[in-house]
C-alpha cells in the first residue's frame, strides 16, 4: 500500500556499481598495502625489552599470540558472511536480498583468510602458542595425555585441511552461483541458480556449525589445553553473528555516502540490521554468562582456572570492558526503534560492536599466553616477571601489526570481490520484495 512502489528496472546502474572515482574502487589496493605493512610490522617488530629482554622464546610466543588474535578476528568476518548468506537462503528471506551480495563478498574471504592458519602448522611455530604441541610435556601430564588423540599436530593438520576444503567448497559455490545469476539471460536460469543456493543452504549450515565450532576449539580453546567448554563454539558464533550485522551497517553506510545503493538500501534495512545487532547482543550475553555461570557454580579448579587468570589486575579491567562493551552499553544504546532506523547513529554503534569483537578475541586469546609466561617465570623463581604477567596486559607492535595486517588482508579480498561484481544480486527473482521491504 505504500505510495511509491519501487521496481528493479528503476535501479540505475551507478547505484549498483562501485564508483570508479570513489575510494571504494581502491579498496583492494588499500587493503593490500595495509596487509603488507601490517604483517611486516608484526613480524619484524623488535622485542620491547623489559620482561622480554632475556627470553627470545617468550617474545616469539607473544608475537604468535598476536598473530592468532588478528587471524581469529579477520576469520570471524568471513564466517559472518558465510552464516549470513546461508541463513538468508535457508529461511528464504526477502528483506536481506539488497545486502546479501555484500555478505557474499565477505564470505569469499573466508577460505583465503583461513590460509593464515598455515604458518601455525609449519615447523615449530605452533609450539609458540599451543602448549599441547610440546610432546615431552604432554607425557608428564595425565590430563593432556587423555586428550592426546585429539590434541596432536597430525590430527590438527588433518582437521585444518578439512576445514579449508569445506569452507572453500561452500563459500565459493555460493559466491560463484550468485555472481552467475547476474548474467542470467532468462528468468528460468535465474530461478535455477536461486534454487541451487537454497539447496546448498542446509548442507552449508551443518558444515558451518561443525567446522566453526571445532575451529574455535582448535585455534582458541586449545590454547589452555586443560580447560574445556562445550559452549565455546557457540560463544565464538555469537560474536561472529553480532559483528557481521554491524559490519554490514558500516559497509552500507559508507557505500551510500559514496553515492551508491541510494534508494536500494533504506532505513527499513538498517532497522533490521540494527534489530539483529540488538538481538545478538543479548544472545552473546546469554551464551557468555551461561559459560561462566556453570563454571562458577560447580567451582571445579580445572574449569575455574580459565576465569581465574582473567580476574587479576588489568586482566580484570579487560574482563569488565568485555562485559560492559559487549552487553551493557550496546543493550541500552540499541534499544529504541528510532536509533536503529537512523544510519548516522547506527554506524557508530556498528563501529563499536566490530571493535569489541577484536577486544573479545583479545580476551579469549591473550590471557593464556600471559598465564603460561607467569607460570614459567614462577617456576624459574623470577617473582617479579611472574607478577608482571599475572597482572599486566602487554600491548606491543606485534599486536597492532598483525591486527592491521589481517584487516588489510580481509579488506583486499573483500574489496576485490566488491569491485568486480554488482553491489546487489540484481537478477534475484525476489529482489523487488526486498527493495520495498517495510517494518510494520
Amino acid at each position: 500500500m505504500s505510495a511509491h512502489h519501487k521496481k528493479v528496472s528503476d535501479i540505475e546502474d551507478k547505484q549498483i556499481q562501485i564508483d570508479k572515482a570513489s575510494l571504494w574502487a581502491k579498496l583492494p589496493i588499500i587493503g593490500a598495502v595495509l596487509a603488507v605493512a601490517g604483517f611486516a610490522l608484526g613480524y619484524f617488530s623488535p622485542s620491547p625489552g623489559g620482561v622480554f629482554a632475556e627470553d627470545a622464546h617468550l617474545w616469539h610466543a607473544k608475537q604468535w599470540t598476536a598473530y592468532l588474535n588478528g587471524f581469529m578476528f579477520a576469520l570471524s568476518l568471513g564466517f559472518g558472511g558465510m552464516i549470513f548468506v546461508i541463513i538468508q537462503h535457508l529461511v528464504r528471506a526477502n528483506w536481506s536480498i539488497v545486502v546479501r551480495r555484500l555478505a557474499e563478498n565477505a564470505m569469499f574471504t573466508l577460505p583465503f583468510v583461513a590460509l593464515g592458519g598455515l604458518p601455525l602448522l609449519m615447523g615449530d611455530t605452533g609450539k609458540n602458542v599451543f602448549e599441547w604441541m610440546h610432546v615431552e610435556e604432554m607425557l608428564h601430564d595425565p590430563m593432556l595425555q587423555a586428550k592426546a588423540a585429539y590434541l596432536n599436530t597430525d590430527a590438527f593438520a588433518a582437521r585444518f585441511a578439512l576445514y579449508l576444503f569445506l569452507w572453500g567448497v561452500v563459500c565459493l559455490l555460493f559466491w560463484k552461483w550468485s555472481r552467475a545469476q547476474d548474467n542470467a539471460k532468462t528468468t528460468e536460469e535465474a530461478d535455477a541458480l536461486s534454487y541451487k543456493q537454497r539447496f546448498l543452504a542446509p548442507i552449508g549450515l551443518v558444515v558451518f556449525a561443525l567446522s566453526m565450532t571445532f575451529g574455535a576449539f582448535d585455534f582458541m580453546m586449545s590454547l589452555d589445553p586443560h580447560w574445556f567448554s562445550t559452549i565455546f563454539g557457540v560463544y565464538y558464533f555469537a560474536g561472529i553473528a553480532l559483528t557481521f550485522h554491524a559490519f554490514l551497517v558500516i559497509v552500507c553506510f559508507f557505500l551510500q555516502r559514496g553515492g551508491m545503493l541510494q534508494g536500494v538500501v533504506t532505513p527499513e534495512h538498517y532497522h533490521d540490521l540494527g534489530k539483529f545487532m540488538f538481538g545478538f547482543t543479548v544472545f552473546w550475553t546469554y551464551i557468555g554468562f551461561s559459560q561462566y555461570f556453570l563454571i562458577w557454580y560447580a567451582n571445579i579448579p580445572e574449569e575455574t582456572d580459565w576465569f581465574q587468570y582473567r580476574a587479576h589486575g588489568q586482566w580484570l579491567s579487560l574482563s569488565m570492558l568485555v562485559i560492559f562493551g559487549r552487553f551493557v552499553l550496546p543493550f541500552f544504546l540499541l534499544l529504541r526503534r528510532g536509533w536503529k532506523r537512523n544510519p548516522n547513529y547506527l554506524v557508530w554503534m556498528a563501529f563499536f560492536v566490530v571493535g569489541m569483537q577484536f577486544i573479545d578475541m583479545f580476551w579469549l586469546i591473550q590471557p593464556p599466553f600471559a598465564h603460561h609466561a607467569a607460570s614459567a617465570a614462577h617456576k624459574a623463581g623470577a617473582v617479579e616477571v611472574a607478577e608482571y604477567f599475572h597482572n599486566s596486559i602487554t600491548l606491543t607492535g606485534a599486536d597492532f601489526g598483525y591486527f592491521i595486517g589481517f584487516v588489510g588482508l580481509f579488506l583486499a579480498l573483500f574489496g576485490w570481490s566488491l569491485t568486480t561484481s554488482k553491489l546487489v544480486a540484481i537478477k534475484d527473482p525476489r529482489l523487488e520484495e526486498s527493495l520495498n521491504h517495510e517494518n510494520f
Partner: protein
Amino acid sequence: MAEPKQVSKQASKQKKFGVLAEYDSAAAIFKACEKVRDAGYKRWDSYTPFPVHNLDKAMGIKPSVLPWIVFACGMTGAASGLLLQWWSSTIAYPLVIAGKPLFSFQANVPVTFELGILFSAFGAVFGMLGLNKLPQLYHPLFNIARFARATDDRFFIAIEASDPKYDLEKTRKLLEETAAVAVEEVDD
C-alpha cells in the same frame, strides 16, 4: 398508539456516537483515511477485516507509548527479582550453600533476568489492552447491522461525536465525498 411516539421521541434525544462510513476495498479506505487525517480529526478509527499495511501512516497515528511502559515494567521486574533474592537469601533465610557468599550477583542473574522478561511481557500485554481500552463490553458500532461485515469483507471508518471538529453535516459530507458505499449516523 402512544408507545411508538414515545420511542421516536426518545430516539431523537438519543446521544450520538458518530458517523460510520463503509468501503468495499482496502485501497478505498486507505485514501479515505488520508482525507480524514488531513481534515484534522483526532477521535476516529478505522475497522478492517485484515491488517492493511501502512494504514497507521494514512491515519496519522503517532508512535505508541507502549515501549516505554514495557521498558519501565522490565526494569521494575529485574530490580524486584534482584531485591527478592537479596532479601530472602541474606535477611529472611540466610543459608550458606556450597561455600558461596550469602549474596553473589552470579547466582541471582537467572531469576533477575526472568522477572525482567516476565514483567515486560505483562507490561506489553496489559499495557496494550489498557491503551486499547480493552476489554470493552459494549460498543455502539455493534448495533449497526452492516458493521458485522467488518470481520468479513468490508472496511469502515467511524468518526466519533466527541471529536472537537465533529459536525454532523460537515463530517457526513466529508465521508460522502470519499469512495464510501454507505454513510450513516450511529446512536451511542
